[in-house]
């Protein structure tokens, strides 16, 4: 979308200044190794971002340093808040993220509704993952969350649960983008059950030591690091275990261009973007070779043994 004057909103303008400064102090403290909890969760008003305690899990190693926090929160695809990359940071402030519950239903023995705070109390990990968008750019982001399989264990999926469907919140009054019929709202994504249960698949509640920014999918989103970013649904209110492969939003919109699997793969070109190389933001040049499964092949390639990934794109 054309914008003659582009001014990325500094986060000091989005957040009250004291909170911003506190956050900076906290990040500095975190970098110095002191406990994030020192300020106490109550020091932050509800609705504002607050620090999260998380154990760093460095098993999925990544050599690049994390992307600047302000870039990761100012360049987002979240069409519910507008289609330009800067729209979500500008518009997502209207989303009420507290209280927030997720309904977990479908082929499970113990369907339940769970509050995000309960998720947080289950204990969190920090994982630094490469985040690869289908538009051929990537960032490196320290996410905070818990393995999705821990949530699945709570509801006990039955043997009929072959897929998991993730549904994003649908609140036209708070999400201006829903007025357009660009996609079938609410935004829906899905994974095969073994993909969902994989230890790399993270139900995510935070980033950079704090709760998620609204534009990044607060208060709870998926992160599936070996797939293109759009597979990782944001602001999730409903998780369904289902028998049949769900029709996801982008597949419904354009099944020729977007497949159900959408694994990061330099060998499978998207009609719009070659996937051979990527731009690690904020670099100028798309000079980084795309890694198959976004570099997580060692952990996940076995999920697809025997499958033709050019057909199942």
């Amino acid at each position, binding site marked *: *979308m*054309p914008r*003659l004057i*582009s001014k*990325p909103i500094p986060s000091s303008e989005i957040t009250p200044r004291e909170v911003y400064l506190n956050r900076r102090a906290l990040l500095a403290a975190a970098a110095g190794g002191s406990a994030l909890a020192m300020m106490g969760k109550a020091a932050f008003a509800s609705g504002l971002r607050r620090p999260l305690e998380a154990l760093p899990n460095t098993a999925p190693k990544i050599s690049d340093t994390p*992307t*600047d926090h302000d*870039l*990761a929160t*100012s*360049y987002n695809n979240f*069409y519910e808040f507008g*289609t330009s*990359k*800067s729209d979500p940071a500008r518009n997502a402030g209207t989303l009420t993220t507290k209280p927030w519950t997720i309904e977990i239903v479908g082929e499970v023995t113990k369907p339940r509704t769970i509050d995000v705070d309960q998720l947080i109390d289950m204990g969190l990990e920090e994982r630094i993952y490469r985040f690869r968008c289908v538009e*051929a*750019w990537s*960032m490196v982001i320290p996410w905070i969350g818990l393995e999705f399989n821990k949530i699945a264990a709570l509801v006990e999926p039955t043997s009929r649960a072959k897929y998991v469907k993730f549904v994003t919140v649908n609140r036209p009054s708070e999400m201006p983008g829903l007025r*357009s019929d*660009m*996609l079938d709202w609410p935004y829906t994504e899905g994974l095969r059950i073994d993909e969902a249960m994989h230890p790399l698949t993270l139900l995510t509640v935070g980033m950079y030591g704090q709760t998620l920014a609204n534009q990044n999918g607060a208060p709870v989103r998926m992160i599936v690091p070996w797939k293109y970013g759009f597979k990782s649904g944001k602001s999730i209110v409903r998780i369904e275990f289902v028998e049949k492969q769900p029709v996801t939003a982008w597949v419904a*919109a354009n099944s020729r261009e977007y497949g159900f699997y959408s694994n990061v793969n330099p060998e499978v*070109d998207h*009609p*719009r973007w*070659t996937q*051979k*190389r990527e*731009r690690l*933001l*904020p*670099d*100028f*040049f*798309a*000079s980084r070779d795309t890694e198959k499964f976004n570099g997580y092949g060692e952990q996940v390639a076995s999920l697809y043994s025997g499958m033709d990934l050019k057909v199942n794109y």
Partner: protein
Amino acid sequence: MGDQVSRLRTVSESSGFSRKRLVFGLKVAVFIVSLWPVTEIVIAFLTGNTRLFGANPAEKILHRTGDWAIYFLLITLAISPLRRITGLNDLIKFRRMAGLFAFFYAFLHLMSYIAFDRFFYFDEVLRDIFKRPFIFVGIAAFILLVPLAVTSTRGWVQRLGGHRWILLHRSVYIIAILGVAHYWWLVKRDLLWPAIYAGILIVLLGYRLLPKKRFRG
């Protein structure tokens, strides 16, 4: 009597002179303003302030140059109708500059694609051209712009002869259609802006189909 005539002539000549100067001054001003989008990029580079362009500066540059290429194409096409409607004949003096700026920004746009997106892998550029309709159409528009830019000088008008020159330069209609089609095809989902440009283009081209006499005034 003779005195009066000569005095009148002096007045009209001096007003013609100042009008020329006015047009010249305006041309310089428009030239400088038209360079601003690229100047801002250069300044950001030189001062190392790439944050001006957010997380994806290369994409910003690609999009900004593409946007300005299309703005200048539409401006170029708007000049004749505006001239006819307003009766401001001097507007024509800005048309060549607008057209050349369209070419200038299209060139920068193409270069940023080759450098930033394809990282100078020309085999991939070639594959892109034949695989992706929006790139094909974009490159077609650019290639068609080249002869127009080359023959934009007064010398070329004379060499070709006014009639042939006009025929050649009518290809700008096709270029503009290709430019809008390019944008239409590349957007993922949100067709708002391509549709706005398409609307403007339809008005500008449609105007040329109207019987001319009524609008000469």
